[in-house]
């Protein structure tokens, strides 16, 4: 098995990881712009985080540098904190305006 995993790293070109991660990032970004449901928007943001994480991990593995993976670890920390705050804002929003529609939150309109 060990051997098989190593061949996966070696046989799959780094380019493909990069493309996969870009694809996921693009889907996430499109989702944020596309959806009105705040909870879906938050999930799409998570998706974008993960695409970046995957990219970092792939580079880290290919360069044999553990620091890239430590970075992923920190991103996860921040993402966890962000999600808790984001979801609590969502709960507040539901409580105040009785909606989870992002388009309702347009107080910043100039």
């Amino acid at each position, binding site marked *: 098995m060990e051997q098989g995993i190593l061949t996966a790293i070696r046989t799959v070109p780094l380019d493909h990881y990069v493309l996969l991660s870009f694809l996921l990032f693009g889907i996430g970004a499109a989702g944020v712009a596309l959806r009105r449901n705040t909870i879906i928007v938050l999930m799409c943001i998570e998706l974008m985080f993960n695409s970046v994480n995957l990219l970092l991990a792939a580079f880290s593995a290919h360069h044999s540098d553990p620091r890239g993976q*430590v970075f992923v670890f920190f991103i996860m920390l921040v993402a966890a904190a962000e999600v808790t705050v984001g979801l609590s804002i969502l709960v507040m929003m539901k409580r105040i305006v009785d909606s989870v529609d992002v388009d309702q939150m347009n107080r910043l309109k100039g």
Partner: protein
Amino acid sequence: MAALFYILAALSVISALTVVGARNPVTSVIALVVCFLSIAAHYVLLNAQFLAMVHVIVYTGAIMVLFLFVIMLLNLNKPDGPRKSLAMRLAAAVAGGLLFITLAAAVRQGVQIPPAAGFDPGVGLVRSVGHVLFTEFLLPFEVSSVLFLSAIVGVVMLAKKDKDGTDQATDITEAERARRAA
């Protein structure tokens, strides 16, 4: 083994598309769980065992449960209400696609990825990552606990209600709330 990567990649992309496209939020969450699990599998393929474990625990185990919990709490487990205008949705899809294409083009043209010198398969093991984390990145690691603390305090502040029952985070009156809900 390379085939496994492509299968997993396809799975990630399809589940990601489902997340964005599903009308029911619960479907989205389930698709996102699938997506995260496939990414965890990618980590395993990259021999990043530590990351794979943490990823499953943090994302799938904690964050996604939180999402589901909130959906349940707010009674969102029914198909979405109004959607964005068609033009907006089209624009968003095209923008996302274009972003992918441009990024891909950038990699195809501009980024030269040099071959790894002195390949070390054990780089993603708990031991090596842990070593770096607790030596080189000790200070950021400790500081991140402060981040968590502030996140906790912030969440408590947001969720707290005043004694008189109004929300502290806003000064919206009951009448205003009713008007908005209408």
